[in-house]
């Protein structure tokens, strides 16, 4: 008995050491093809750094990438991954979480991807408090299709698809997420790697649905929301900010509409995740369960 205990402790130490050995290099795939100066470079590095700091290896997690410049991180970041369809990353991520909830699940998506094409999925992922971490590259444009306006673009923003200026008002991702039931809603800035690392780690450590909306300058197509633009308008939430109050979080999130961008955790509360409500996967992940064979228990309903 004691021998086994000793062995277990030894294994744990060994495991710990192995984990410490994970490095940025382990997560590094192909060299990024993003434009020079693109905010995505910073986000990519911050994600890897956060994962390394959390002692994870590429085998320990699942990442679902959307389609867009953000989704192209699929080839630059090593992990068990799905490079999904445009807009569909969130339901893929939910499916992974529900069948193997021991795996941390991240979705790396863009604003057009997540708030436009996948807008309905976003709302319902929030509602379900599905335990997935959604990192949105919010740059206000469709970069990969050469600069049409995205759902977060400011009203009046002129682009190829809206030459006279976009008529719609922008989506406010923070307000939308908080009001839809997300239990962790944060904002960060691609020009502040340290803040991104810290925020991504906080999101990863949160149990439940986490949104990190990253303000990301697109140096090629968006001449409005530049690094300069954001540097003048972002500010960090102070230590006295109460992040667990729904109403003040809603009010805080609305500052975005006035082009003031709070950085940090806007809202965080502890609630059961979707999968925590399922007694059938309480003791084991669905994928790890033994096959059900007591068929008479269900055939009796038909007699």
């Amino acid at each position, binding site marked *: 008995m004691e021998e086994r205990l000793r062995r277990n402790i030894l294994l744990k130490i060994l495991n710990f050491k192995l984990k410490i050995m994970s490095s940025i290099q382990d997560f590094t795939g192909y060299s990024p093809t993003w434009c020079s100066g693109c905010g995505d470079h910073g986000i990519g590095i911050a994600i890897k750094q956060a994962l390394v700091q959390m002692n994870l290896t590429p085998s320990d997690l699942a990442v679902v990438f959307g389609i867009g410049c953000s989704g192209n991180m699929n080839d630059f970041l090593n992990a068990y991954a799905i490079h999904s369809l445009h807009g569909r990353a969130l339901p893929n991520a939910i499916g992974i979480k*529900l069948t193997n909830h021991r795996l941390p699940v991240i979705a790396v998506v863009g604003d057009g991807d997540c708030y436009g094409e996948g807008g309905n999925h976003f709302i319902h992922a929030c509602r379900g408090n599905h335990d997935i971490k959604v990192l949105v590259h919010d740059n206000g444009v469709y970069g990969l299709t050469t600069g049409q306006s995205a759902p977060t673009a400011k009203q009046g923003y002129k682009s190829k698809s809206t030459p006279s200026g976009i008529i719609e008002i922008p989506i406010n991702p923070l307000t939308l997420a908080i009001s839809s039931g997300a239990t962790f809603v944060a904002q960060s800035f691609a020009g502040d790697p340290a803040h991104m690392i810290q925020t991504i780690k906080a999101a990863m450590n949160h149990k439940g649905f986490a949104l990190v909306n990253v303000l990301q300058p697109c140096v090629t197509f968006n001449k409005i929301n530049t690094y300069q633009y954001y540097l003048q308008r972002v500010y960090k939430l102070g230590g006295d900010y109460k992040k667990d109050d729904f109403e003040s979080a809603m009010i805080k999130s609305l500052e975005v509409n006035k082009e003031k961008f709070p950085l940090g955790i806007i809202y965080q509360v502890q609630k059961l995740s979707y999968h925590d409500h399922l007694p059938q996967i309480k003791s084991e992940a669905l994928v790890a369960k033994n096959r059900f064979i007591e068929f008479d228990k*269900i055939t009796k309903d038909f007699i």
Partner: protein
Amino acid sequence: MDITWKIGGEAGFGIMTTGLAFSKIVSRLGYQIFDYVEYPSLIRGGHNAYEVHVSHENVSHLKPEVDVLVCLNKETYTKHQSSLTKKSYVIYDEQEFTVDGDFVKINVPFKKILADLKGQMIMKNTIALGASLSVLGAEIDELIKILEDQFSKKGEAIVNFNKNFANAGYDHIKNNYSKKVLKFLTKRESSPSLVMTGNDAFSLGSVIADSRFYCAYPMTPSSTILTTMASWAEKVGLVVRHAEDEIAAINTAIGASFTGVRASVGTSGGGFALMVESLSFAGVTEIPIVVFIAQRPGPATGMPTWTEQGDLLFAVHAGHGEFQKIVLSASDIEEMIEVTAEAYNLAEVYQMPVIVMSDMYLSEGHKSITKKFIDDFITNYKVNHGKLLKEITNGKSQITNEDQNSNNKTKNYLRYKITEDGVSPRLIPGTPGHYYQANSYEHLEDGHTTEEAQPRLNQVNKRARKWDTYLKIDFKPPKVYGDLDKAEVVFVSWGSNKGAVIEAQKQLKDKTNTAFINFTHLYPLNKKIILPFFKENKKYILVENNSWGQFGKLLLQETGIEIKEKILRYDGRTITPEYIIKNFKF
């Protein structure tokens, strides 16, 4: 001898539950049943009818005459009187309406019994069941048992209260119509049977196949799979998600399947249309997925609660780009269990979407099948995960040299490795020491995106070889009913028409020699295997529940065989033996 019992009334007053109770009672008495519901896409206010064909033998078609018609309202009589004969029994309440015609009139004072026993409208059904069993010469015991099961949770007083209505109906016939009582439903010795719909069969087949994840958005006539699976979830250990839309449904299932769990989705044509983009995604990422389609008449919203086989070509051609899929169909309840369980194996072995086609008639009608059939099937079924690298520990032990990449950049594992049979080994995410991406872009063997010509060709050809392998190993030829060599007339069909065609064959026996070729493995088709079924100097007739003769077109496209004679039906009603005979040209 066989009979048809039919009950009709206003929608929202328990006709469905009552019909199913009758089917179960009759099955418990040792008879075989086949039933069908007619209902409008309304919750209240329309007309519902439930028809049960009862026989001593296995039965899978409807017959045109109704032998016992229970009219809970006048409309039932008006709508269905054309199917009555002189020998038919009509159960109705003289106090509510009168009926005139040459048949046996059985007056049951529903209204008075309800008033005397202080019952609610819905208890009319219980009186009707009691009266029906009495008319057909059955004991009341099984009805009493059903009421006990249904109401036992609510206490003995409620059980007894409901029993009173059953007894009142039963005794009323005994006391007033004893001479007219038929001696049909006397209890028979028989092995236990189950009463199931096609949707139930898909659900059971999924559990037998160890499918653990089901995701759907409700759509008639597929919705009862979602509700059945949800009711089993905790007991069986399934995760069932009612998603925000069909796009989410299939993508959640694809995510689930990525982790190594068997997963499926179910829908009807319109919902499937939303899933199509992701079918292509499953195709290129080679993630197994089973898609169940219960067809109903389209286009668009169409006729939601009626039946048609109008989505075959859509299913076959669904998805952008060229990717591989398998389309199967079931013709009856037993076959639905077999085909469903097979679909999960094929999806994993060939790592592609497998579509199982049903229609409203098969999905929602009940049929009795023996418990022995299910037990035997469970015993013989083997879960086949195909090339799944499940037991990898620390990366090295189970991955063979063959699975390794020579330059070692991807930590040895190649998700899309070029193989002779086209199938590359799958790896369960989370396996230590490895990682890979399932990529919706065209990709290299290791999963990374590529736009280079040669790797593209390699992957397209690799995926194409999966079809070759399937056609060689797992494609099943159509089943033949009757003697193909002797037949002058050969029916060709697929799906739920089978019962009607086989009954038509029986009825045509004295006129001509017929055979029937029934397809379950609809796409892709193996030309070499199929050609010998089509011989010279025979008259082939295509039977389909659509207006285009869609399987005929598919057969022509894939094999060059053209069937010129067609019996098609597309009025929302199912193909019946009478319909075939009426449209049969000698």
